[in-house]
């Protein structure tokens, strides 16, 4: 090396190795080519000198040609001399420490109760010297892992190691690890874990995980933290429920109940919404079975985002109590609006309204028309008529509550409905149903509703009037004070809405003798000499009612078409009435919304309240009470805040939830003599999924070590990890180098030329061409 260094003028201290490189890197190729070319060249050189008679000249010429050929071969093979400095590197060992929540679960070792993480900590402490010696031969990297890996310093391991991460996903962990050591020599892995990976089925290893383990090409020694011996627990494992459901439509949920070391017991499973029990079921837990599949069916009765809680009783000695309860959220929506539409007789007004309702995809319409009266002579037997008996008992007793809205359109109840069913309608509305009466000569007093339950629920009282219905044309007089009412909104823009109302043709026919109640909202009047309410809304109990004292709004449809316009406003008007009556969320006067449905812990929650008065004008400067409570602690953890609405009738409230879980926000305000309330629910991420399958997965850990060529060891508190060894092949890397070309210089080409010129000169002197 020293001699060579001197020849090429390099410092022998700077480089400790040299190497000759050829252009074709494959030596087989080089020797093959040389093996063919050299004999051919020698034969050619010698044979071409056959006419040279003198031996000395013949040998000289042969030597010249051989020299030129040799140098030419060197030029073609491009030899380079490389001087380099090389050094050895250490291989890597990864120590993976599971920090998911399941590591906090207790385990029994030598009749002592320890947490799983304590077992790992003990093993690390008792093997400190082993890891230190390992660090001399290897680069030992430490990682915390759950569903991702987090590099930690060796010193920080003991101080910062705690079980807090929500999931374990070993497939992702090995994927990340392979990425970390790409191009580096990872010679082995220590995996400290309980194997409680939610993504793996019990007793199996997924194909994905198997591929990741094999792809790592390093032995994985699995150090099992804890065992299932004496593990006592009752858990709700997996709950399967649709993300959304429909009001008044039964929905199914299925779940798995896990039981360990609880013997034979009958255990009640309870499904609650808030503090209201929806359903309970007895689970017959048996000692010889670990998992029990349970199906539950319940019927949501309110729309919105609802939070439900499944709970099992807690038993003394259970290792985990948090998994005895599980909350889940379902967005409950209204399926379709079910409307019962009763018509006293076929008429153009009922025909056009039916068309609007039947064509509304949100509406499930059940229509009945009274097609004949007792005095009518149909001149045909019943069998030749399409008339069906009016099912009053079913409609107004059995299935009344399944309707969202009942419409009496110019309908006289007697003799089709027994008077007692009017009381049922009253109860139905009081409990949250809605009712609409549309005018005509068979409505109100003309329908015999005076002093009945219907008069009580409607926001008017009936005066005795000899001509309660008058066929008279008129333009409705709109109540400016209620012009922002959702029913009146034919156009969103205020001015366009005014124009829309003014463009409508007149109505014809008015039910007179109606006197608005003090709490009634008269949206439009008949005013032609006398003044009578035309369109009135009101509340009765929890329900909403309305009346329209005419049977001629079809004018706004077909007659409007004849005037060159369309039936658009007619359709909008009736859809508005339906939406308001069934209290669609946008028609509620007190509204409460959150900026998100789900929050992560540490995120700020923004709640917005908006309030309008009876006439749907913003309610300014009104005090609104906001009550926040967690679903789990209804009575105890309740906070009340006082808000005041601004000039837009709005108020906002921001807060930082101090605990995870499901929250309900309830607003309440007193406007005059009425109390308005609204409630929404939202969640702040609370993830105890790790406890759904808390068992130690020994099979998984064993399979990982088997597949990778490592060993499996169950930590027991006195563990000697020094028996676990890894191969340590030497690795040398070049830190810097310098190369010299042995062919690309003037003397190589000069020698070739010189030998060839001398060959030519001697051949000329010998008389050869």
């Amino acid at each position: 090396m020293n001699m060579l260094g001197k020849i090429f003028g390099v410092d022998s201290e700077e480089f400790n190795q040299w190497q000759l490189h050829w252009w074709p890197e494959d030596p087989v190729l080089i020797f093959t080519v040389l093996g063919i070319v050299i004999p051919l060249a020698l034969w050619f050189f010698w044979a071409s000198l056959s006419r040279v008679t003198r031996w000395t000249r013949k040998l000289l010429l042969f030597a010249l040609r051989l020299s030129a050929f040799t140098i030419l071969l060197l030029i073609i093979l491009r030899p380079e001399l490389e001087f380099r400095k090389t050094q050895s590197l250490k291989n890597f060992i990864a120590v993976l420490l599971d920090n998911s929540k399941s590591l906090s679960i207790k385990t029994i070792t030598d009749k002592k109760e320890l947490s799983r993480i304590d077992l790992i900590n003990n093993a690390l402490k008792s093997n400190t010297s082993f890891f230190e010696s390992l660090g001399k031969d290897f680069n030992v990297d430490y990682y915390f892992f759950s569903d991702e890996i987090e590099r930690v310093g060796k010193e920080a391991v003991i101080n910062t190691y705690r079980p807090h991460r929500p999931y374990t996903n070993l497939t992702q962990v090995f994927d990340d690890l392979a990425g970390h050591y790409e191009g580096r020599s990872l010679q082995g892995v220590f995996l400290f874990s309980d194997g409680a990976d939610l993504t793996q089925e019990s007793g199996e290893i997924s194909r994905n995980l198997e591929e990741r383990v094999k792809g790592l090409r390093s032995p994985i020694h699995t150090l099992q933290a804890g065992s299932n011996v004496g593990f006592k627990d009752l858990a709700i494992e997996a709950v399967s429920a649709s993300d959304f459901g429909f009001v008044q439509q039964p929905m199914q949920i299925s779940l798995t109940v896990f039981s360990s070391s609880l013997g034979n017991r009958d255990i009640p499973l309870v499904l609650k919404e808030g503090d209201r029990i929806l359903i309970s079921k007895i689970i017959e837990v048996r000692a010889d079975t670990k998992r029990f599949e349970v199906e539950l069916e319940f019927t949501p009765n309110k729309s919105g985002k609802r939070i439900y809680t499944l709970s099992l009783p807690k038993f003394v000695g259970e290792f985990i109590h948090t998994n005895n309860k599980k909350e889940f959220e379902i967005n409950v929506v209204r399926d379709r609006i079910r409307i019962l539409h009763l018509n006293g007789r076929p008429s153009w007004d009922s025909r056009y309204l039916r068309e609007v309702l039947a064509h509304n995809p949100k509406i499930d319409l059940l229509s009945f028309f009274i097609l004949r009266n007792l005095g009518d002579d149909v001149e045909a037997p019943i069998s030749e008529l399409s008339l069906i008996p009016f099912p009053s008992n079913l409609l107004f007793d059995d299935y009344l509550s399944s309707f969202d809205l009942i419409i009496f359109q110019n309908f006289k109840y007697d003799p089709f409905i027994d008077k007692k069913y009017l009381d049922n309608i009253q109860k139905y509305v009081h409990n949250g149903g809605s009712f609409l009466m549309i005018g005509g000569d068979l409505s109100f007093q003309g329908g015999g509703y005076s002093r009945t339950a219907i008069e009580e629920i409607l926001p008017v009282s009936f005066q005795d009037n000899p001509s309660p219905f008058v066929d008279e044309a008129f333009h409705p007089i709109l109540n400016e004070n209620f012009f922002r009412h959702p029913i009146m909104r034919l156009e969103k823009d205020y001015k366009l809405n005014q124009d829309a109302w003014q463009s409508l043709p007149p109505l014809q026919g008015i039910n007179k003798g109606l006197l608005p109640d003090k709490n009634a909202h008269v949206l439009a009047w008949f005013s032609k000499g006398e003044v009578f309410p035309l369109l009135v809304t009101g509340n009765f109990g929890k329900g909403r009612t309305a009346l329209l004292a005419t049977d001629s709004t079809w004018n706004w449809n077909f007659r409007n078409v004849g005037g060159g316009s369309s039936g658009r406003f007619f359709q909008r008007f009736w859809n508005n009435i339906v939406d308001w009556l069934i209290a669609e969320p946008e028609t509620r006067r007190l509204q409460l919304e959150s900026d998100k449905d789900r929050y992560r812990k540490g995120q700020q929650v923004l709640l917005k309240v908006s309030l309008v008065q009876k006439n749907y004008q913003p309610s300014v400067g009104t005090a609104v009470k906001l009550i926040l409570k967690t679903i789990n602690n209804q009575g105890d953890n309740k906070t009340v805040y006082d808000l005041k609405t601004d000039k837009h009738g709005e108020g906002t409230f921001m807060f930082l939830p101090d605990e995870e879980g499901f929250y309900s926000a309830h607003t309440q305000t007193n406007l005059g003599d009425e109390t308005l309330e609204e409630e929404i629910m939202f969640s702040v991420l609370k993830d105890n999924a790790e406890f759904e399958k808390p068992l130690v997965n020994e099979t998984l850990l064993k399979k990982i070590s088997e597949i990778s060529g490592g060993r499996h060891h169950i930590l027991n508190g006195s563990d000697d990890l020094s028996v676990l060894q890894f191969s340590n092949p030497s690795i040398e890397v070049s830190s810097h180098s310098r190369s010299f070309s042995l062919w690309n210089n003037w003397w190589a080409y000069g020698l070739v030329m010189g030998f060839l010129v001398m060959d030519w000169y001697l051949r000329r002197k010998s008389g050869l061409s």
Partner: protein
Amino acid sequence: MQKLIPTLGLILVLVIWGQISSPAVAGYSSLTLPQILYQGGNDNPRPDALRSLLAQISRRTSIEVNREPITLKLTDPELFRHPFIYMGGDEEFDPFPEKDLAILRNYLSYGGFLFIDDSSVRAGSAFDASVRKMIAELFPQNPLQKISRNHSIFRSFYLLNTVSGRSIIRPYLEGISIKGRTVLMLSSNDQSGAWSRNKLGHWNYDVIAGGYRQRQLAIRLGINIIMYALTLDYKKDMVHLPIILERLRRYNPK
């Protein structure tokens, strides 16, 4: 709701139609039948027909009617106060002006109903040719089609399985439907001739090749047509179907 439908089939007791309803107020909301006036031909071959039909409707159904029919031109501003119009004839008539066709097209497309009756009692009559020409101009993309026996028109009040009239020229009705609603109906069987009755209560025209039953079926069909225009296809609602289908099965066992 879904449970309600099958349960209805179990109802055994027919509700007794109660006492006579209160005296109705005939007025704007009552049914008026306008007859269309047009140029050329004979637009009123059966002068008593509509009055007779209205009397039958009043007698047999709960529909309140204005007993006297009216006449209207298509250009009459009152046209859109009457969603049902009748057009009769027995002779060739002048083509409708484009303006009238546009009004009629608008009328039918947005909620109106036209019943055309050929009173000529002849197959391929001049009136029939004029009507078909007019309809071809009215809805060039939507030709006349035979009306199926499953149409609500055959069950809107009476259960019918035949098409009747004073003379059965075509044993079917033809019509045009827009967005699922039949807006125009053509009868070639002189329906109005079967309906016509004078003020003394005598039938104006004998039914051809039939008797009392054929006339009754023609009147029933007329009532069904009016009932369809007023209630559309509500008889096809699921709640009505089980009972109607059962009666149809008994009425027409095959």
